[in-house]
């Protein structure tokens, strides 16, 4: 690696990471094939055990997470679902019950029983309940009061506050819009002005920041992009610039960094990877912004491509009108953005190197049980969730339709490594999303 002049602090830290990562790669690729193969296996049972334990018991060090317990539920349940596994009825019932106790009578969920409702806790709770699925879980959600809560969190700037008197940022916008969308309660009053706010958060670098003028950042980029898609306003973002920024966030290590000149971190496998994957379904919007005619689908990664559906007509499923009495066509339209999005085929091939990302995840992020930021850091449930989510994105990025299985070459390691596909806008397992969509489309608020 070349250094011009004296290495800066950024460069020194980067060299240290490269050292660690390439040492691991050299080690693994120097092994005989059989031993090598072991390193590329996802240690499913170990991960599930680690995750399940987190649902039952957490040490005193977790006291600082006392206001984020719904997040722990989501990180664990979503990870387990990605691994194609599940927890017992007793635990599921326990979680449904716990989240009900976190639900505020005036709407929204707090970080624990008796805590003020908070948008992030609400997002985590809703996604957890969707992941559990089933009538008991989904009907425990009070959509009417949640709607009221979301509306109260709306700020005159167009953004949302995380909680009463709380901070406003792109995360808050995403969590609010995502929850409203998946619960089929998104409307113009919630959307109004949010697109303005998020657009102001796209920076000169091309990525999206937490607040206007702040630095472009992977987490906020995912949040901003997903929210805009759900509101059907994604054309207001400069997509070519956004794509260019995202793809430059992938380093030679294979993983993604969160910001320019910062270090790789496993969690950005999802934040950046999913942002890239979302764009793959925005082909026509991107082409429009480039001033180019819509060509035949250019769907390929390197030499081979999945052409299994290339001859089929694009399906634009019309939204089913929900039976809801107060449902207005406007509401039906916008609530089905998430569904229209995922049903549309991926017109573009992967924009990032899915193999390199999988390699980083399997060899550098994976521990005996659980996943971590990078070598030298400790595992935690948050990283386990987002690394696995990013891995799922990588597996399915080369597949045109979400419910089709990927090719063998799309999955690094044994094909049994394959994870469940997610709906990239909400980050819930696709089958669970489908169930929730049906449930909330047909029931009255």
């Amino acid at each position: 690696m070349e250094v011009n002049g004296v290495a800066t602090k950024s460069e020194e830290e980067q060299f240290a990471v490269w050292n660690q990562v390439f040492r691991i790669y050299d080690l693994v690729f120097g092994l005989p094939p059989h031993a090598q193969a072991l390193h590329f296996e996802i240690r499913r049972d170990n991960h599930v055990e680690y995750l399940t334990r987190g649902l039952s018991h957490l040490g005193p060090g977790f006291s600082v997470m006392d206001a984020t317990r719904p997040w722990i539920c989501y990180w664990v349940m979503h990870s387990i679902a990605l691994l194609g596994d599940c927890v017992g009825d007793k635990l599921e019932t326990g979680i449904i019950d716990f989240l009900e106790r976190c639900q505020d009578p005036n709407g929204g969920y707090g970080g624990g029983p008796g805590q003020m409702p908070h948008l992030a806790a609400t997002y985590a709770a809703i996604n957890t309940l969707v992941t559990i699925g089933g009538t008991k879980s989904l009907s425990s959600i009070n959509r009417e009061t949640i709607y009221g809560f979301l509306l109260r969190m709306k700020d005159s700037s167009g953004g949302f506050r995380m909680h009463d008197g709380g901070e406003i940022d792109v995360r808050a916008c995403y969590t609010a819009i995502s929850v409203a969308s998946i619960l089929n309660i998104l409307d113009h009053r919630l959307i109004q002005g949010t697109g303005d706010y998020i657009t102001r958060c796209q920076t000169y670098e091309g990525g999206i920041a937490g607040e206007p003028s702040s630095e472009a950042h992977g987490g906020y980029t995912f949040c901003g992009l997903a929210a805009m898609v759900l509101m059907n306003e994604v054309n207001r973002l400069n997509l070519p610039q956004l794509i260019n920024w995202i793809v430059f966030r992938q380093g030679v290590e294979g993983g993604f960094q969160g910001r320019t000149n910062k270090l790789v971190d496993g969690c950005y496998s999802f934040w950046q990877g999913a942002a890239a994957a979302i764009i793959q379904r925005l082909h026509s919007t991107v082409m429009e912004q480039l001033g180019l005619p819509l060509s035949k689908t250019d769907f390929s990664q390197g030499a081979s491509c999945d052409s299994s559906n290339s001859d089929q007509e694009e399906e634009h499923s019309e939204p089913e009108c929900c039976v809801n009495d107060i449902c207005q066509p406007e509401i039906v339209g916008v609530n089905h953005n998430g569904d229209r999005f995922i049903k549309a085929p991926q017109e573009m091939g992967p924009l990032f190197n899915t193999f390199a990302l999988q390699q980083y995840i399997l060899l550098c992020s994976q521990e005996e049980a659980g996943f971590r930021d990078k070598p030298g850091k400790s595992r935690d449930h948050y990283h386990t969730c987002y690394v696995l989510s990013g891995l799922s994105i990588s597996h399915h990025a080369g597949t045109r339709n979400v419910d089709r299985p990927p090719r063998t070459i799309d999955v690094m390691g044994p094909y049994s490594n394959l994870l469940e596909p997610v709906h990239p806008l909400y980050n819930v397992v696709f089958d669970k999303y489908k169930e929730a969509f049906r449930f909330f489309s047909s029931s009255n608020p």
Partner: protein
Amino acid sequence: MDSEDVKENRVPFSNRSEWSDIKPVPQDDGPNPVVVIDYKDEFVETMDYFRAVYMADERTPRSLDLTREAISLNPGNYTVWQFRRLILEHLNVNLHEELQFMDQIATKNPKNYQIWHHRRWIAEKLGVGAAHKELEFTRRVFSQDAKNYHAWSHRQWVLLNLGCWEDELSYCDELFNDDICNNSAWNQRFFVVTKSPLLGGLDVMRDSEIMFTIKAILAKPGNESPWRYLRGLYQNDAKSLLNDPRVASVCTEVLLGGSQYVHALNLVLDALIHQFQPGEDLKGAIEAVYSSLDLPDSTSDSELAKRVCFILEKVDPIRASYWHWRKTTIPSQAL
């Protein structure tokens, strides 16, 4: 009061006479609790008492002290913070003292959302007079971590709402001297150049900023930050950017350098897509790079953008699928 003091000197609430009238409220996790945290006794007790005053909406000095204890045990409890704000307002507490409290707990929790938000709330109430102190505070944070995201957002908020822009550009220079690769500092520079009421705005500043950025690029062509900053100066109009002879010249020079030219080519490609006509020097430099690599033979003058993509696919393989896609989105006029 930090957590060590709490441990040594702590008297349980049940033994504190001033709390004898309060019935603590236990947490209701239900009969089959999940994500059970093994709280220490002092944590349980403190939160039980907090719940009591919170539910009673008691806004008194003792409940204020209680929130402090609760915060020291879990600075992430946003309910406690919000309630503390209500008490501070109700009691009309001197917020300068509150800032001192914030200074104490900030060191151990540099990335806690609630602490930064509370700080912003205080600063807003204190007004313009707080500007200098807040800038000093973020400066201290940056001396530990020059990229702390919350600190940068806070600093920007302070400048926008409370002012004090005078030294901001030179502060960016300081940070660049420490680390020219600090992207947060580059972002801040863009912020200052575009938003400072003292500088005249982007159009006025553009020329000198281009000179500054080019210097940074030449010192370290592999540093992505100044390249993105350069595009920002021209509001991502790559064609206009490359039409500036100084910019074309630095791209040429970097290409002739023989390595670390990915960012240069990224920029050139965007310009070519928008019908930028490169001069002979730049064209020659691109051709030199092309022929130094083992790439398909091509003599056609009109395929320069495509050739740039071929180069990038080869020298920047992590982004091969992206460069491949870029090849397919070259408008026919640019080919």
